[in-house]
């Protein structure tokens, strides 16, 4: 990013905060690309919360620091470059801001302090077996009975549902109207009777997402956000939250750093990979794409800072940033060659007693598979193309 002197001072202070406060074992685990685990994540959340840096982008009255958009971007980037684990966007970037914008005072009081403490986890009940990119066709039903809804149906691809305390969920409350108009937004306690979570193991080796079955789950009406049948507006606004973050510049730089480590630690034909022409060309090409992504994100940051709407055009950041992550992961796998082939699931998941693996090669293939999700989740690349075609190019 194009740092002003002020921003560069801010960057330095964030950098030293992370290097001083991030526990070494977490840093090491993240550098290797393994799972940090709930317990250590909660500990890190606690440290961030104590320094006011867990939710710096929230409204000040709920514990935010009034960070500017540029400061948020810099902070995210420094977290990634400092090998801090990626924070759960569903909890801190999605439901937190939704509650601040659409929640009533009772709902805000009940949830925001817990989320801000960093000890409560949320998951997002959006996709269903027959409603993926076409989210509005969802069929999970909520029937109003007295002062509560009875919810029945199933959600799928629900990341983190296996350990989440709460789920925000889109349910159908009216089947007679147009698809988008009959949807409500409910907050569901994951300990409620009638909820079953079935983890789904991904091709990368562990369960990142789940299927969530809801069988006559009772949800108090007081846990509906916004009006009945008014859930689609909230769901859509949520897709717009933090869209600048979806450029994932920090996550790209994290992977660039790994590729660089491979370049200087591996050899071929008697030379470090860093000197091999094929590697140089591919690395430099991704570097150029990253610089272009960063410059392009800078344009939107400038717009946001000036208080102008960033518009649907910002979809291009998601489109390009998510693809670029995959290209870095592919370069790393290719650069490692046979080294990236063995895969030890116990070590990946930081299980006790697992045989230690190479710090870069041990996770490379798993990460490569996992990275396919970036172009699918949060509006697939095809959906981003549609958004740009319709809303920006008016095709």
């Amino acid at each position: 990013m194009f740092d002003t002197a002020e921003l560069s001072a801010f960057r330095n202070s964030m950098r030293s905060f992370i290097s001083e406060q991030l526990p070494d074992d977490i840093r090491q685990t993240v550098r290797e690309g393994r799972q940090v685990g709930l317990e250590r994540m909660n500990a890190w959340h606690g440290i961030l919360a104590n320094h006011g840096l867990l939710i710096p982008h929230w409204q000040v009255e709920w514990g935010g620091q009034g960070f500017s958009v540029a400061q948020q971007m810099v902070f995210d980037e420094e977290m990634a470059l400092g090998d801090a684990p990626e924070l759960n966007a569903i909890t801190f970037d999605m439901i937190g801001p939704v509650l601040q914008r659409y929640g009533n005072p009772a709902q805000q009081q009940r949830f925001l302090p817990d989320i801000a403490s960093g000890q409560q986890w949320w998951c997002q009940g959006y996709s269903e077996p027959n409603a993926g990119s076409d989210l509005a066709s969802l069929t999970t039903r909520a029937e109003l009975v007295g002062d509560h809804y009875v919810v029945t149906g199933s959600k799928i691809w629900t990341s983190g549902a296996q350990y989440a305390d709460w789920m925000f969920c889109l349910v159908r409350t009216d089947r007679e109207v147009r698809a988008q108009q009959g949807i409500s937004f409910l907050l569901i306690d994951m300990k409620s009777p009638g909820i079953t979570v079935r983890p789904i193991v991904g091709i990368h080796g562990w369960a990142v997402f789940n299927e969530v079955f809801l069988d006559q789950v009772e949800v108090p009406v007081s846990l509906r956000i916004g009006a009945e049948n008014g859930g689609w507006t909230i769901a859509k606004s949520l897709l717009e939250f933090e869209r600048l973050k979806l450029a994932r510049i920090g996550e790209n730089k994290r992977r660039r750093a790994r590729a660089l480590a491979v370049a200087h630690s591996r050899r071929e034909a008697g030379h470090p990979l860093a000197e091999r022409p094929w590697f140089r060309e591919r690395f430099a090409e991704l570097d150029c794409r990253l610089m272009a992504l960063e410059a392009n994100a800078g344009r939107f940051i400038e717009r946001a800072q000036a208080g102008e709407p960033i518009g649907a055009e910002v979809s291009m950041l998601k489109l390009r940033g998510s693809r670029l992550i995959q290209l870095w992961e592919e370069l790393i796998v290719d650069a490692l060659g046979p080294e990236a082939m063995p895969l030890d699931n116990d070590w990946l998941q930081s299980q006790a007693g697992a045989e230690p693996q190479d710090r870069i090669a041990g996770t490379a293939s798993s990460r490569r598979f996992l990275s396919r999700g970036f172009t699918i989740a949060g509006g697939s690349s095809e959906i981003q193309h549609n958004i740009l075609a319709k809303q920006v190019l008016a095709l």
Partner: protein
Amino acid sequence: MSAYTLDAQQEMLADSARNYLSRRTTPKHDATQADRQATESSRWAEMASLGWLALPVPEAYGGLSGSMADICALAEELGRGVVSEPYIASAVLAGMLLADVAPPSVRDDWLPALADGSRRLALAVWEPGARSDWTEVNTRATQDGADWRLDGNKVLVLGGTGADGLLVSACISGSKDLGIFLLPAGGQGQRLVAQTLFDGQGAAELTMARATGASLLHRGEPSAVLGLLEVALDRATLTHCADTVGAMAQAFALTREYLGTRSQFGKPIAANQVVQHRLVDLFVEIEEARSLMRMTASLYADTGIDKVAPQRRHVAATKAFVAQVARHVWEESVQLHGAIGMTQEYEVGAYVKRLALAVNLYGDATFHLERVACSSLDSSAIRALKVEKTFTAHHHKETTSAPSS
């Protein structure tokens, strides 16, 4: 200061350029050499009166001391308007190099003349058979009393035809030094053969056999002189990227308009999702290219001591990126138009050719990717070693292949 949005003055400059260029007839890319030269000289005077030629010239010499961001704002419009006059080659590449390296008397003589359009300058830096590698210099300069004699061949002298003077890079006989010479056009021992590049712009091949009349503007160790040339070429490369962004934007606009208008199978071609997604890809890549180009231009506002390395890295990345996007844009412009996109008379053809040339001009993607790789992957020790090799190469030529005089 905004890196990405034009300021009020740049907006005015761009608007007036767009206005002027939209009124002027599109140059025929099949025009003859003579036709082109005739229209060029009258247009050169117009470009001077619009202040464009003064933009890169320092105020002290009758110029406007424009920033790189100002120059790039104008260049985007030159690309959009398919201007074939050698603005970048004369005003940005050669003119700014002269301002960097020439002694005061030469600057006094040349810079006001460049600013008011009464003279044109060109840089002869590339040699035959070396792709875009301008660091390979086989041209020799031999001192002959107060005069210098030049021997060698230069290719792709952009704007060379019609230039009043040529800046020439040459090895200095009897030393390891490199020099930058000013060779007045038309002197004894030089042969300038005019060429028309496939996009319609003019260039020349320069053959020097005991060419006389050259004056030495600057001499020094190869690494130092190559460094000066690199700075000059980087400015031109970046300006050319801005030109290319303007041309890509217009090629895209024409393609989009055509696909929205032409109907096949009972609906506009642009109603097909497969076509829409391909247009989106072009749009996104062009937007990224523009952002990167403007970001890089804004780096030139920094006058700090360590500015050169980030500028070099960013210009290389910008050109590598723009070259790849330009190729994608021109090939898709033809494909999405269909057969009409292959005709000489249809408007998009002028852009297709300009972009196809832009892919390789001032070094293609591979050339600049290697420069990015140097900055990303090489330690300073390795970088020093590579410069050392350049030294050795020059020294080697000096000792083994010095021409007999």
